[in-house]
């Protein structure tokens, strides 16, 4: 028998089918998986099982669209365990979370700091106020603390810079201000509608991404196959969200380098796109659009015609603006060679999504673990090599163009509305399910475990920001502190997605 279980995206398996290894084997198995650059950890979490702690590690293999599952059970006591992180840095955030929530001690974890100050954390004495920042004793260096209140009043997060004059030597990012305990709420709220609305609120800018991940997972648990028109609508919404947010990001990047024309034109262009969501489902963020097992908003031929018009108007102005933007010397001077994350760093810390692709690391769930209409679209990810702010800007442009093309292709073949839908059954008991979605920011991963009655027992959410925040901290090293805002904007990571 293998010591790991191979599943596909959105597949439900019995919990007992996941092999349980002793910790040493579990560690060497999973760290050796990651030695292949096509594999990365999508989720690694722990939950309390009787008196023990059960660890489940999910490694995605991009080369053959599979996910490798393995587990281990350890005692919660004073034992010190060797860490995965010592072998592969990309595990650092998962182990920090396990340490924070359950008090597991690691003997060789290099950076065992709190992640989000979860309400039911192990050590209640560890609070946001007594977080210990990395310090350098020096007369020449100075510290600059920014936040937790953001200058633009977006989301709270604290950034502590150690600078040599204008140059950043080190940045430490402290999050956790947005912790709402969503994972626990998923268990407390028992109605499906409540849970769906919860998933819409994980990160306000990725409503489609997180909600479709949740409904795919739920439908898989209930052994339900979504109808073609539902799958179509989800794919379409995901691509539309991508275009809208990327356009807004281009506007925000322009604002940060004080390029007024770009800021206002890209900003204006985003509006008709999110307004289209309003027309479609009554909400500009697409809340209410995606529901498990059914859909309140069929994508009609009239909507298709309207979207076609919106996109035509959008594309004309967009390409005109982009052509000016991409050649303006003062813009390029700000974006090029700023905030570089090289391929080596990107791989080591396990970045995903846009950030990974900008550094030449090909990570895109739409291509590696496709579902819904992506199977037919045969998505080819766009990658850049330099990993600077300009690469991340270019990726946005290319993905916007690509998504428009996908939407146009999809609009030629709109599936009929299924009038009679099969009802959703109850979730399977004693099961494990994992769902991956490529949101506009990158890979979203939700995992669920059900108990013997089929109720949710564990729900784990992983936003792409969880991996990528460290990339921002590395990117700004040796840059000027005045370039930090534009670096930050080029990543556009989620605070609430991280803090859940």
């Amino acid at each position: 028998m293998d010591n790991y279980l191979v599943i596909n995206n959105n597949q439900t398996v019995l919990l007992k089918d996941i092999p349980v290894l002793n910790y040493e084997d579990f560690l060497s198995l999973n760290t050796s998986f990651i030695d292949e650059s096509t594999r990365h950890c999508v989720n690694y979490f722990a939950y309390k099982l009787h008196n023990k702690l059960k660890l489940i590690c999910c490694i995605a293999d991009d080369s053959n669209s599979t996910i490798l599952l393995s587990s281990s059970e350890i005692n919660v006591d004073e034992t010190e365990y060797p860490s995965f992180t010592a072998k592969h840095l990309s595990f650092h955030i998962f182990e920090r979370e396990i340490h924070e929530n359950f008090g597991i001690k690691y003997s060789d974890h290099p950076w065992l700091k709190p992640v989000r100050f979860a309400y039911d954390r192990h050590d209640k004495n560890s609070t946001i106020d007594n977080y210990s920042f990395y310090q350098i004793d020096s007369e020449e260096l100075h510290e600059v603390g920014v936040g937790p209140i953001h200058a633009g009043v977006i989301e709270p997060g604290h950034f502590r810079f150690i600078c040599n004059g204008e140059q950043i030597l080190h940045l430490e990012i402290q999050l956790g201000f947005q912790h709402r305990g969503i994972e626990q709420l998923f268990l407390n709220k028992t109605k499906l509608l409540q849970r769906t609305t919860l998933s819409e609120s994980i990160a306000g800018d990725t409503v489609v991404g997180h909600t479709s991940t949740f409904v795919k997972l739920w439908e898989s648990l209930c052994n339900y196959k979504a109808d073609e028109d539902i799958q179509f609508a989800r794919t379409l919404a995901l691509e539309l969200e991508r275009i809208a947010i990327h356009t807004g990001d281009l506007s925000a990047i322009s604002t940060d380098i004080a390029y007024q024309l770009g800021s206002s034109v890209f900003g204006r262009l985003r509006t008709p796109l999110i307004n289209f969501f309003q027309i479609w489902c009554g909400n500009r963020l697409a809340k209410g659009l995606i529901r498990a097992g059914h859909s309140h908003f069929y994508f009609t031929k009239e909507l298709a015609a309207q979207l076609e018009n919106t996109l035509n108007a959008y594309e004309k102005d967009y390409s005109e603006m982009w052509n000016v933007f991409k050649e303006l010397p003062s813009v390029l001077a700000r974006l090029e060679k700023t905030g570089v994350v090289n391929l080596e760093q990107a791989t080591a810390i396990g970045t995903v999504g846009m950030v990974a692709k900008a550094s030449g690391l090909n990570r895109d769930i739409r291509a590696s673990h496709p579902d819904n209409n992506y199977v037919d679209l045969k998505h080819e990810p766009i990658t850049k090599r330099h990993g600077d702010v300009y690469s991340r800007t270019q990726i946005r442009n290319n993905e916007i163009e690509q998504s428009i093309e996908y939407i146009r292709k999809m609009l030629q073949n709109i599936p009929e509305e299924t009038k009679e839908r099969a009802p959703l059954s109850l979730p399977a008991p004693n099961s494990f399910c994992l769902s991956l979605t490529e949101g506009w920011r990158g890979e979203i991963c939700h995992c669920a475990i059900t108990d013997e009655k089929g109720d949710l027992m564990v729900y784990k959410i992983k936003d792409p920001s969880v991996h990528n925040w460290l990339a921002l901290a590395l990117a700004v090293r040796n840059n000027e502190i005045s370039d930090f805002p534009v670096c930050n904007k080029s990543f556009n990571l989620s605070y609430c997605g991280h803090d859940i």
Partner: protein
Amino acid sequence: MLSLLLIIIASLFFTGIIIRTKSILSGRKGPGIFQPLKDIWRLFKKGAVYSNTSSFVFQIAPSIYFASILMAILMIPLGGHQGIISFKGDFIFFAYVLALGKFFMIVSALDTGSSFSGMGASREALYSLLAEPAFFILMSSFALLTGYTSFHEIFSTLHFGTYISYAIGALAAFVLVIIALIENSRMPIDDPKTHLELTMVHEVMILDNSGFDLGLILYGTNLKFAMYGGLIANFFLTPSYEWYFSIPIFIGVQLLFAVIVGILESFMARFRMNHNPQYIFMLTSISLLIFLGVLLVLGKIA
């Protein structure tokens, strides 16, 4: 007297015109021309908040800053009319009375103890330091050309005759426009619109000021703009012009100046911070070019 009056009038609508130009160029309607003034008026009616860690320096600095600008304006002539204060070497006094105001702003920024304000203060100090040689080489060249050392006398005897001297005039106007942009923390050196403390220069320095003090600083900036506009206008005025020529020319130059600033801020991104010194140094080299032109005109070099 006339110039003081005109500069104050110009200062009332100067920022409004810049903002309006930017709005129109980006396809928006934009606020009314007097909106910045209304904002300042609103601030004047408010009380100021002082942090416990700051001393009296922080409280007196805005007033000194404002007074220094008013003082400097008194020296600006208008065509044949001399400024309220005029004496030999007044352009040196002009530069250093402004520097005094700036010095107090920098010290008051340090007084707050905030890491942001200190950062802004060091940036502002660096940029003014780099812009200073340009101004002095420029004015000294004109002193050499005319043989006088006060604003009024320099401008009233400055007659353009040869092609070279027209070139000198154009270059000088250019240098003064850029100095005005640097001194008023506008693009491409600084972005007055940004909300990001880390990228600010002037704005972050006055981050702790509020209410009446902030109003003074903001109106001071408006005055400073109009003052530089007035200085530039003098290049286009001669004493022989009657008031009904010189006043429209003065207003025209101010308007043009504001619109140029608006256009500049609409169609480019601001510089990366470490490119700013290079850019400001460029002014010094242009001023040296003016100096060379003056030597050519005077026949000191063949």
